[in-house]
């Protein structure tokens, strides 16, 4: 990617994932043989960098072993033998110690060192006179690609010496990469695919980093020194902007910053409508350090703690003691506010590798979340024991994800009871009346939520999955994204139904999906009867502002009007129009 045509402004269009404007220089986070990033690390980071290389190696070994098992089942024994040689190459102690030594001596990143050393071997193989032996390098190349892929997965952009305010271009991003990103260094993300975007997207949103996916930038010339503008509201990526374009976006960015700053002042105000209808506003949280924002913005609790993210740094389920410590810390940091801990939602596209999950042709319809944990009964009980033990330190409830019918909820409750009995015997203190919630994100659960409501203390609608399962659209599949529409009448009706059933059974219903963070949905959700919204802490001010600018009377009218609409686009237009009317000054969400 050279900057040969310096003067031409190029506009690319992708899918907007996280709103916001960024202006910066490009940084290519792309791994091919040719462009492996090279950067320096601190002396103190050397052990982690070496550990990262070892983890990539052990992941690669696990992958090969899994492949071997598959081949054995298929009767392809020749393949098993070939992979055996791959394993031995991978384990080569000389290569490994060489790489580790080089990381230590040169203090460069693992990818770069690995690539350099593999290149030196390539040279040696190329110098062999015998063609047969020369071609053995193919195996080495195959293996090194695998290791590099796994290294890349564990790469944290934050480790990179990337200049501040970089626009990061990547093929795709995984959750861990996004999670470890430093906000000050990354101005925006631009990715080619949507592959595993959804979870990366959730984290980008939590960090407030503009994000545009499905951008085809391979054939575009992007020089290192050209400016790039990312408009995360519209999905536009502008390379080499004209002076006038640059001015326009600089002004817009300035206005947006002002808007965000003035919104933050409403942190202390109540989330209630003009006519005094009070809403409970909570935050979705992945990591303890996000609680600062929650307190700053006056959040009333954590409506969803995604506990599986504590597995990220451990690459397995942490021990009971470790989990107890983590839960106790976060519960204590709530300063008395309630927190809902959702049990591990693994599988689907999350954390498959380290759990050694079997390959499924359809992982989102396979063994994920509660299904997986009911199978891994001991690990499940371990988590429940840890949460229970931490429960005496504050106001905590437990929520089960991906429940598809009452038997799963009942079985989960059985295991919880078992955990309680064990703790009784071992003389551990815990809150015996701990509240149990059920996530409603599968259509079968939504349709039978009256049954589920009788078996638990609260319901929480996970709209991201509810949309995906109701509409039969994979939320990671970019070519289908035009169908992934939370404003589809079926989704709106399901939400209405769940809220009604929950209330007639006397239990609260909250919404913890991405639509809770979108202020254009706020009035509609209030009108549908939702009392509690839970979104990334970053969005609390903008949602609170939406609540404070609407009245429950007009929200009810809007909901009534929308419930008889027949088309997703029509509904989307209606809520956008309503929002533009109530909060005309929101530059982030009101745009053509």
């Amino acid at each position, binding site marked *: 990617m050279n900057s040969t045509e310096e003067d031409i402004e190029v506009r690319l269009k992708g899918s907007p994932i996280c709103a916001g404007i960024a202006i910066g220089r490009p940084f290519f986070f792309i791994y091919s043989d040719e462009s492996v990033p090279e950067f320096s690390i601190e002396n103190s980071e050397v052990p982690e960098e070496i550990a990262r290389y070892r983890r990539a190696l052990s992941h690669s070994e696990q992958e090969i072993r899994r492949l071997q098992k598959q081949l054995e089942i298929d009767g392809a024994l020749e393949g098993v*033998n*070939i992979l*055996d*040689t791959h*394993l*031995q*190459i991978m*384990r*080569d*102690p*000389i*290569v490994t110690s060489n790489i580790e030594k080089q990381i230590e001596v040169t203090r460069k990143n693992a990818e770069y060192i690995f690539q350099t050393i593999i290149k030196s*071997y390539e040279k*040696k*193989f190329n110098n*062999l*006179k*015998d063609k*047969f*032996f020369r071609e*053995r390098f193919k*195996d*080495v190349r195959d293996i090194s690609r695998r290791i590099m892929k796994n290294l890349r997965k564990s790469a944290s952009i934050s480790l990179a010496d990337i200049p501040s305010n970089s626009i990061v271009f990547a093929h795709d991003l995984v959750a861990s990469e996004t999670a470890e990103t430093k906000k000050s260094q990354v101005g925006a993300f631009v990715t080619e695919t949507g592959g595993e975007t959804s979870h990366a997207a959730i984290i980008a949103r939590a960090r407030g980093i503009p994000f545009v996916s499905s951008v085809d930038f391979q054939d575009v010339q992007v020089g290192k020194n050209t400016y790039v503008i990312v408009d995360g509201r519209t999905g536009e990526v502008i390379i080499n902007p004209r002076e006038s374009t640059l001015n326009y976006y600089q002004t817009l960015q300035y206005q947006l910053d002002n808007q965000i700053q003035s919104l933050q002042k409403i942190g202390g105000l109540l989330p209630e409508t003009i006519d005094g209808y009070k809403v409970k506003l909570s935050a979705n949280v992945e990591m303890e350090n996000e609680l600062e924002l929650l307190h700053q913005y006056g959040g009333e609790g954590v409506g969803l703690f995604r506990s599986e993210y504590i597995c990220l740094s451990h690459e397995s389920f942490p021990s009971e003691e470790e989990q107890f410590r983590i839960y106790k810390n976060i519960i204590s940091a709530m300063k008395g506010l309630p927190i809902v801990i959702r049990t591990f939602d693994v599988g689907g596209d999350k954390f498959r590798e380290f759990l050694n999950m079997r390959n499924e042709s359809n992982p989102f319809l396979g063994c994920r979340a509660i299904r997986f944990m009911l199978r891994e009964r001991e690990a499940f009980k371990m988590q429940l024991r840890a949460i229970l033990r931490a429960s005496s330190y504050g106001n905590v409830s437990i929520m089960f994800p991906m429940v598809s019918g009452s038997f799963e909820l009942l079985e989960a409750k059985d295991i919880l009871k078992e955990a309680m009995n064990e703790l009784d015997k071992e003389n551990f203190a815990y809150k015996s009346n701990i509240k149990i919630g059920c996530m409603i994100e599968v259509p079968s659960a939504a349709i039978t939520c009256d049954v589920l409501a009788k078996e638990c203390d609260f319901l929480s609608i996970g709209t991201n999955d509810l949309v995906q399962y109701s509409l039969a659209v994979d939320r990671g599949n970019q070519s289908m994204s035009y169908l992934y529409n939370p404003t589809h009448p079926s989704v709106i009706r399901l939400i209405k139904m769940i809220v009604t059933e929950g209330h007639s059974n006397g239990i609260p219903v909250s919404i913890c999906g991405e639509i809770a963070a979108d202020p254009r949905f706020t009035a509609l959700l209030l009108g549908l009867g939702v009392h509690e919204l839970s979104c990334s802490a970053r969005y609390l001010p903008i949602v609170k502002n939406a609540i404070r600018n609407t009245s429950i009377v007009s929200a009810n009218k809007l909901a009534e009007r929308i419930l008889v609409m027949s088309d997703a686009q029509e509904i989307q237009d209606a809520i956008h129009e309503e929002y533009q009317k109530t909060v005309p000054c929101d530059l982030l969400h009101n745009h053509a």
Partner: protein
Amino acid sequence: MKLEQEVLVKNYLGLHARPAALIVKLLENAQSEVYFTCNNQTVNAKSMMDILLLAAKKNAKIHISVAGDDAQPVIRQLVQAFDDGFGE
């Protein structure tokens, strides 16, 4: 203890990936240091890559040198493996 012996590569394809993997596997738990010399090139026999880079074809002469406490059993097993043509 240091032991040395010369062996002949007997199998048809020479020290390609599979025999090299077998050698490395065999030496996995060996305490001794093991070196192969072929055509004036000496490599660490515990490194799969290095063995491949020897590019030892059929009938190549390999000089094995083993130094360490378990040198005796290690060299015996190695010579045996070469003599068997690595089962090929």
